[in-house]
């Protein structure tokens, strides 16, 4: 082993810690001095620093709570353009109105569980029917979503979840006024977020409540429908 290699070997662990920004004291000074005079270690430090940066990037993207953009732009003093969610809501309402105008007879035709996790399930053209009831989904005093039950030739239900504990496969159930629990479908949420629609196994007028549970049966959110 050459003198240079032996000298570099003294800084093996310190280079990683320097790249991570956690090296302190005289070791930090000594390692920095060595790197300045050693192109090989300087290159290794650069690569390790890129890896350290990448570790921070491993965290998943998560949609901030409702209203985050509005509050942020106010704090920044930036004029507020329509938020994505406002645009999305307007689009959904417009699409719903257009679909309703198509009339009856097409069948519900919702895609179940085929969308990417955490994204709104795409509704193929179908009669939306009449909104029979709607409510917010709650968990522990916190609003975590909404539920809409539609009547018509083929009753169906639409749910959205945001900032909830849901991740991965989750189950939607409804409880009828007679107390029976009926399975509606299983869906996928991502980091607390998801939207979907599915045919209802019972008449929407007969539903007392809706709930979202994990595959192990843990309650994620519930709503009392009125």
């Amino acid at each position, binding site marked *: 082993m050459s003198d240079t290699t032996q000298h570099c070997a003294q800084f093996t662990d310190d280079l*990683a*810690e320097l790249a*991570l920004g956690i090296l302190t004291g005289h070791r930090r000074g000594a390692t920095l001095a060595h790197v300045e005079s050693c192109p090989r270690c300087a290159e290794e430090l650069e690569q390790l620093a890129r890896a350290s940066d990448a570790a*921070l990037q491993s965290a*998943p993207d*998560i*949609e*901030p709570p409702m209203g985050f953009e509005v509050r*942020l732009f106010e704090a920044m003093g930036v004029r507020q353009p329509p938020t994505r969610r406002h645009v999305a809501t307007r689009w959904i309402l417009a699409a719903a109105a257009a679909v309703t105008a198509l009339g009856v007879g097409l069948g519900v035709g919702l895609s179940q569980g085929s969308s990417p996790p955490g994204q709104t399930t795409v509704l193929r053209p179908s009669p939306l029917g009449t909104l029979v009831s709607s409510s917010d989904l709650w968990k522990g005093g916190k609003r975590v979503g909404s539920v809409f039950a539609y009547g018509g030739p083929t009753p169906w239900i639409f749910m959205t979840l945001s900032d909830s504990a849901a991740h991965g496969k989750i189950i939607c159930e409804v409880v009828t006024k007679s107390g029976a629990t009926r399975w509606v479908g299983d869906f996928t949420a991502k980091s607390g977020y998801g939207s979907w629609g599915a045919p209802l196994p019972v008449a929407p007028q007969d539903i007392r409540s809706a709930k979202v549970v994990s595959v192990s049966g843990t309650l994620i959110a519930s709503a009392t429908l009125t």
Partner: protein
Amino acid sequence: MADSGPTDEALLAGMALGDQAAAVAFVRRYQRRVFGLAYSMTSDSSVAEEVAQEALIRVWRHAPVFDARRGSVTSWVLTITRNLTIDALRMRRAVPTDPADFAASAMMSLEHNPEDAVRRGDVRLMVRTALSGLPPEQRRAVVLAAVYGRTAMEISEEEGIPLGTAKTRIRSGLIRLRAAVEQVRAVEEAP
């Protein structure tokens, strides 16, 4: 970033000049990443929202001093977020997300195979894959150091392991992540 439109650097340059449209585009590009990092570190939505807001305001205010020679915009923004999150956790004496849970939330985002990630130049996915392949003790040490800013000494004390073991775990884990990152870079730089 994967989405089209102006580069991060161009948006930051616009923000430095006070361009509000650039600020809006930047916020919409980064808010999920910033909030995602803060939430993954704290498991607390309200703390994460405060941190994310403060981080993006700092980016807006300090855009003129961003130096591209010192790293990417993404690294800059996420480092600001990480440091603010660590400060928030300290100020509130709050319990941070367990490193194992942080790594688990990152790994839950694995949806594609690594070969696709390399071909698409997806560093994030490659790092998640590399993280998932680390022995649990190395993964924990890397997350504690790279995300929570713990020194080797602090990791040694928290984990109840010798200092030399903590250093080895940090270094070994980081080298594995480096291999993943350099694999993507090699594809990006190939003619």
